[in-house]
């Protein structure tokens, strides 16, 4: 169609940088995505710990300094608490969505679907289970 054969002039609104603040649903979503930054911090922290541990033998008490000096720092403690909170937030919001990815029938002939709360509860059980296993393993090896 030739350009002059139309009276159209569609208006395309600009996407504002603050679009995610206009709807609480989007704000929650961006916070959920934002928790990845905190996770990044925790990963680096752990990585640093591993390095320090590896260096410990040759260079004295690097690991001890890491534990006492770094992890003991009040700012780092606060950051770790934030990390824990954000990790839980991510888990809760993600678990709430997860039943959407599960679609199973009650039995071979039924048209009834497995209710959403089954995978939902299952995820929480898995979370609690995994946490317990890690904690027990940590205490046993101490």
């Amino acid at each position: 169609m030739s350009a002059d054969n139309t009276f159209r002039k569609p208006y395309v609104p600009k996407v504002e940088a603050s679009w995610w603040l206009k709807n609480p649903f989007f704000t929650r979503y961006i916070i959920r995505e934002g928790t990845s930054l905190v996770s990044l911090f925790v990963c680096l922290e752990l990585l640093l710990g591993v390095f320090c541990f590896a260096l410990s033998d040759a260079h004295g008490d690097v690991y001890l300094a890491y534990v006492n000096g770094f992890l003991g720092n009040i700012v780092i403690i606060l950051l770790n608490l934030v990390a824990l909170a954000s990790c839980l937030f991510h888990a809760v919001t993600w678990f709430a969505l997860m039943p959407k990815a599960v679609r199973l029938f009650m039995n071979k002939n039924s048209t009834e679907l497995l209710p959403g709360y089954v995978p939902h509860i299952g995820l929480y059980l898995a979370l609690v289970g995994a946490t317990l296993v890690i904690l027990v393993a940590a205490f046993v090896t101490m």
Partner: protein
Amino acid sequence: MEKIQTDVAIVGAGGTGLRAAIAVAQTNPSLRIALISKVYPMRSHTVAAEGGAAGVIRDDDSLQKHFEDTVAGGDWLCEQDVVEYFVRHTTEELFQLEHWGCPWSRKPDGTVNVRRFGGMKVPRTWFAADKSGFHMLHTLYQTSVQFPSIRRFDEHFVLDLLVTDGECRGVVCYDLQNGVFRQINAKAVVLATGGAGRAYAFNTDGGIVTGDGIALAYRHGVRIRDMEFVQYHPTGLLGCGILMTEGCRGEGGVLYNKDHYRYLQDYGLGPETPVGHPKNKYMELGPRDRVSQAFWNESKKGRTIKYPLGEAVHLDLTHLGEKYLHERLPLICELAQTYSGVDPVKQPVPVRPVVHYTMGGIETDGRTETKMPGLLAGGECASVGIHGANRLGSNSLVETIVFGKTAGVSAAERAMSIKKDYDNAELTRQAEAAEKRALALFDVQGDESMSKIRTDMGESMEKGVGIYREETTMLETIEVLKQCKQRLKKVALTDRGRVFNTEWMNLIELGYTLDVAECMVHSAINRKESRGSHQRLDGPNGAYKERDDKKFLKHTIAVYNQETGLPDISLSDVKITTFKPAKRVYGAEAEAAEAARKAKEAK
């Protein structure tokens, strides 16, 4: 103006238009198809059909039974040879849709299930829950996208047919999005624009159901048939008129008046069947005209239920239980809750009759061809002759696909028989004249309000050509319509834009609807008898209250008169092949008649 050459132009992209387009594409992939619609295909009003589509499939059913139900249901005003063709082709078309992905409801073994419907002797209504039209339309639309020869013109509003040498050779339309006009030349034009329910104030129809195609053909002198037969559906939601499908009653729903009495037994549909055990052609499964008329009589007797929004009766589904209702009638549950605040699982739904379907339309033969060469019509805008004086529920959805396909094949054959494209100065002149006429509406001065004219028309139609009719009120309606047409010429447009100018388009649509409304009331006043959905209360000693086969076993034909601007009314013969006219009976009376007939045959 841009000019497009095609082989087949189809106006309307609902069930019929889409099916026709696919049929053309399958008949000959090299044919160029223009599928023109004033909305996107899935917006077409086929989408709102709920109950289902009739097709013989059960062992205890037969084509003969479907034929007899249809012809008797239509009060013998059907073209019987066309009905024979129709019932022969329903089931294969329904299987075709199944193969294309339509989710027809199933039995546990995976075969297609059918439900009961009003006026049908045997359950033969295929259904996709209570969204049959929705699923049919989306299946057809989605199937159609695989055919590259179908070129769609979505949101294109047709302004006129192009006619030279007495043959239809194209259309001219307004492209809403771009605000420009297009001339589409074609070797065959199929009208599939739906009905004209919007002529009435209280209807089940979408805003787009304005009778465009009927008016386009009518203005070119094409014969319009049986327009007095307008179907009132007995169960529209009080207030808004949203349809509560006949499937509600097919599944076992019952109707009560204010005394909690199943009043249909008083109107030749009894005896009462037990609640939860519906019986075909009894009580709530009587035909639509009878059930609607019963409401009118209950109202006269003061036995309806008064609500702030008007009178109603109760459609009770509560005995069916939540699980069954949510499986079989999910949309009904949602609609009643949303638009009436009533949960059908727990409470009865207030309903009343509401205008639903235009039985008449553009006269066609069994191949969907009109008397104007090159012009075909199918679906609700056409009168192919299967509905007669009263359509049976679930015959029209299947009509869209049976005659959609027929129209497609007929149009394709015509297009293939014509070697050269039509294109000449006269076609262009006509297209430009139509453009000029449309643009001239911007220059009109006046102070009439379009919405007031629409309201006046709708209310007058309800009054004059409603469930029961009398000459005096019909004459009043004729007068009101005449004034409406005059007033329409004095509507000044405030919207000067060309892009999506809905005010401008609505004005042209209202002109179409007024023409169709005139056809309806002039056809009705001339039919001095009662038949099917056309019931009169007048005549010398009430003579018009009865069916009069001697004078009126005839179709009504309306033809536009250029001078008066009104329809000239005449009568034409009805094709009767094997099924001779008899008294139309339901309930116990029908069984007695059937037994008598069998006894006679046995002798």
